[in-house]
């Protein structure tokens, strides 16, 4: 098979750069900037983006998490560690008998699959949009319950 | 008094009484009756029901924990086993301390259509107590029961081992007056009758 230098090589290249030329001309009108000036500028994320986990609270301030460890069971990366304890009348953290006294996620291991969110019977753990997880030390990637838990509602 | 499990129970449960801590209250007659009844059955377990009847009589009409423990002790059963039996049958008065007379009102179908609830309400207002409650003077206990198997006499009351029916409000006033004047407890009397039946049956 012979190669036609113009038809098979030059013409597709020109057609390709043609798109670039059109985009450059129409930049301000039809097409918007693709690149944003992070971190000054932040792009809005898709609604179902899954990044850092958050432990939710009820409106009353009680934690939704009951320390059932189902998230840990569902986790394919085995990155969740839950230790439960019993609520007492004096110290009540969650609605039922049980609450999570330790809740740790190893963010290095986590693959953000969202299975924990699926498994949670109370909707306590939700993967939210905070994606800025970089840190200097490996130990800092163990996110504890205090780091994950939503603040008390006002 | 046997209790259902309550909320907020203390962490440490009390210990069951040891055999030597029991306050045995059976009279000599009761003991000899129990000895006689023991011979009627191949093993002591079978003697629990009549034993409980004797206890119900000896303990004044109701079976509290002490009564159950005494029967268990005398029949060499565990306390829990005897309590399980006693709380299963509704004719043993384990749920509450009964008065001297227990008025059981049948509210099953036949009695119901013949006005059992009219009678029931009348009795309640007259005695001032509800279901399974005892009047403050310890005279009457009112209880709503299932079919007493005498639908021809609906509406029906059972007082002690007697069926009374059909009854009207007027009858009730008379019955209550009669019972008030009675010196013996019909509840104890009934237990006594049943013990006698047990003793007689064995001697045939």
């Amino acid at each position, binding site marked *: 098979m012979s190669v036609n230098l113009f038809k098979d090589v030059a013409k597709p290249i020109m057609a390709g750069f043609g798109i670039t030329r059109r985009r450059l001309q129409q930049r301000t009108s039809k097409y918007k900037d693709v690149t944003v000036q992070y971190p000054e500028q932040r792009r809005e994320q898709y609604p179902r983006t899954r990044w850092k986990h958050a432990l939710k609270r009820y409106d009353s301030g009680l934690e939704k998490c009951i320390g059932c460890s189902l998230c840990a069971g569902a986790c394919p990366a085995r990155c969740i560690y839950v230790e439960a304890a019993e609520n007492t009348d004096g110290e009540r953290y969650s609605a039922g008998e049980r609450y999570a006294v330790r809740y740790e996620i190893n963010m290095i291991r986590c693959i953000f699959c969202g299975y924990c969110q699926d498994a949670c019977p*109370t909707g306590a753990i939700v993967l939210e949009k905070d994606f800025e997880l970089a840190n200097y030390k490996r130990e800092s990637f163990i996110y504890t319950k205090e780091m994950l838990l939503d603040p008390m509602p006002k | 008094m046997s209790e259902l499990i309550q909320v907020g129970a203390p962490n440490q449960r009390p210990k069951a009484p040891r055999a030597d801590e029991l306050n045995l209250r059976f009279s000599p007659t009761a003991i000899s009756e129990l000895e006689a009844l023991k011979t009627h059955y191949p093993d002591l377990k079978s003697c629990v029901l009549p034993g409980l009847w004797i206890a119900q009589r000896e303990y004044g009409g109701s079976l509290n924990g002490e009564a159950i423990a005494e029967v268990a002790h005398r029949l060499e*059963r565990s306390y829990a*086993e005897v309590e399980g039996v006693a709380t299963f049958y509704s004719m043993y008065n384990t749920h509450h301390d009964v008065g001297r007379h227990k008025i059981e009102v049948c509210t099953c179908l036949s009695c119901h259509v013949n006005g059992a609830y009219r009678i029931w309400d009348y009795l309640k207002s007259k005695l001032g107590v509800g279901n399974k409650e005892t009047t403050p003077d310890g005279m009457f206990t009112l209880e709503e029961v299932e079919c007493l198997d005498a639908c021809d006499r609906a509406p029906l009351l059972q007082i002690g081992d007697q069926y009374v029916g059909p009854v009207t409000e007027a009858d009730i006033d008379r019955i209550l007056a009669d019972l008030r004047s009675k010196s013996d407890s019909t509840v104890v009397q009934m237990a006594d009758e049943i013990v006698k039946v047990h003793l007689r049956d064995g001697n045939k």
Partner: protein
Amino acid sequence: MAAVASEVELVNISINGVALQVPKGELIVESVKRLGLEIPIFCYHPRMKPVGMCRMCLVEVGFPGPDGNIRKMPKPQAGCTLPASEGMAIFTDTEQIHRDRKGVLEFLLVNHPLDCPICDRGGECPLQNNTLFYGPSTSRFLELKRHLPKAFPLSKYVTLDLERCIQCGRCVRFTEEISGDSQLAFRFRGASMQPSTFELTDFESKFSGNVIEICPVGALTNREYRFRARPWDLETKPAICTVCSNGCNIWFDHRAGRMVRTNGRTNEAINEEWTCDRGKFGHEFYNDSNRVKHVMVRNGDALVESDWPTAYDAIRMAFAEGGNRVAALTGPSNSNEDLYLLKKLFQTRFNSNNFDSRWTTYLPTAEDDLQKKMGVSMVQNTIADFESMSKVFIFGSSLADELPILFLRVRKGWFNNGNKVVVASDKPTDADSFAAEVLRYRTGTESTLASGLLALAVEKGLAQVPDATRQSLSKYTAEHVSDETGVSVDALHRAVELVAGAGIITSHGIFNTSQPQDTVETLAGLAMTTNGSFNCYALGANDQGALDMGVVPFGGGMDTHSILQGCIDGTVKALWLVGCDPFELHPDYDLVEKALENVHFLVVMADHQNGAVPFASVLLPETAPAEQDGTFTNMERRVQRMPQVLAAKGSAKPAWRVFSELAIRIQPETPPFGPADCMKEIAESIPSYAVADYANLGGEGVLIR
């Protein structure tokens, strides 16, 4: 129990069209297992009588009609109460049965709360499993469920959650049939039916832990394990219990390096599947904060943290004199390997025979050995033997406290086979409840009673003895014995018939009584002359192993009492305590205190802080049984392997490694590289242990005879 007759009559049945022969009367729920099929069950338990309470095991049953076709019964039957009979056709997999199972489960779930996420049983729950496999995916029950208080503390160990109870009666039947205390019963009826104790008093069973394991839902849960972990968080390893000498098989569950719980593991030869409370809840010490983690060496008044080489040097210096100047005492839970290497270290490096593993008031001497004296062994029966032994004589032991699993076996023999049990004890025991005869003697008259029974057996012609023995027994007339011991003459006469030819059980606890050697010899003689058998069982986890390993001063060394006395007198300069707290083990507290104060150099090797630590010159951290690999010999002389489950705490080392490291520092040789190597060495010097090679130690362990 599957009702299998002694001469097995077989019947032809078919299950799902597959023809097979099963023993007549076998329960269908068992027959089905022969085909590898499974019937869902809740209330049925193979070791207890069937009751047919839960209706989960429904099967369709048919019989061949006159025309040869199978005619099914109109209603399904409960497989757990249905005995196999000739021609029976069982169907476990029909459309009808699937619908029935769905219905049963829907009913069971009507009142069962769906709090699985917080339930300790969630993840290993038969109700969850059966619902997943056989149940409906949704419920049609929209009304309010029954509500009852949750987490009711029934005892120190057991929590009752009534809402979750499906009223299968397993716990009630366990206390009635297996443990025999009948502490639980169904109280009240209908919706308020609750398995609980008399008036909700404390659930005081010695075996209450088992009801937690057999509960098919989360109604009875473990108070110690409560909310500690979920089943999928756990790592589980087979292990053995080292709390007493029964050597029960357990599953050792751990999480993140911490002991979480133990469960019974099936070993038909020992514990079947049961555990006692002492064992089941006796492993908490692994997580204690007072574990010894670092080598400490005394510097003036204080113990300061040090390292192993320093400690070894100090020990070498102190023990250099050797001979009668040094001694060692061992505790109940050292492995065979530890004990053997200790003995070797002392014999070959310190040239000493001063080591002892026994802590009883009376310490039998080499001459007291029954094997030498009478030609019989101290341990003649296995635990399983007592199930089929028609006569059992328990002497001077509160069996449920000392050897709980043996107690269950003896009781099972009585319950299932009607074995006759005679109990002789100075205090009330749990075995009294089913004993055919109870001999309650005065404390201190053990040997009189034993001699009296032997004399009576001779008098009645039940035992043949030489004339000399007959002479010596002549003073033990029934009346004399009765006066001495407080046992009535009638009782003695009744008992002797049952005692002759019986399997005699006594424990090393007998050596704490007066004249124990006479008692033991008389009982052994009684067994020998009446064709019975005699057993004097060890009590500590590896006490029997210590005797087998020869950690007894029969080679001319000093025994426990003389060693402690020697410490006071100054004849013993250096003492090594291996995994033992003499204050707890030795009957004389003051003697121990004086000995530890006066001994020149004291090595304390312990896994947790004990009373001897303040006196230590060197404190060595020792691994606890589950933190090292090793073998244990139980009281019936069954060698079992305890694998390493947890990592060693701090710088702790297994005792055998310490002994071998010290030995090669004193005089180089090839050390054993692991416990398996140690066992090979043991087999060379103790031939009976040759069978206990690590390759053979799977399954039920190896019985040494």
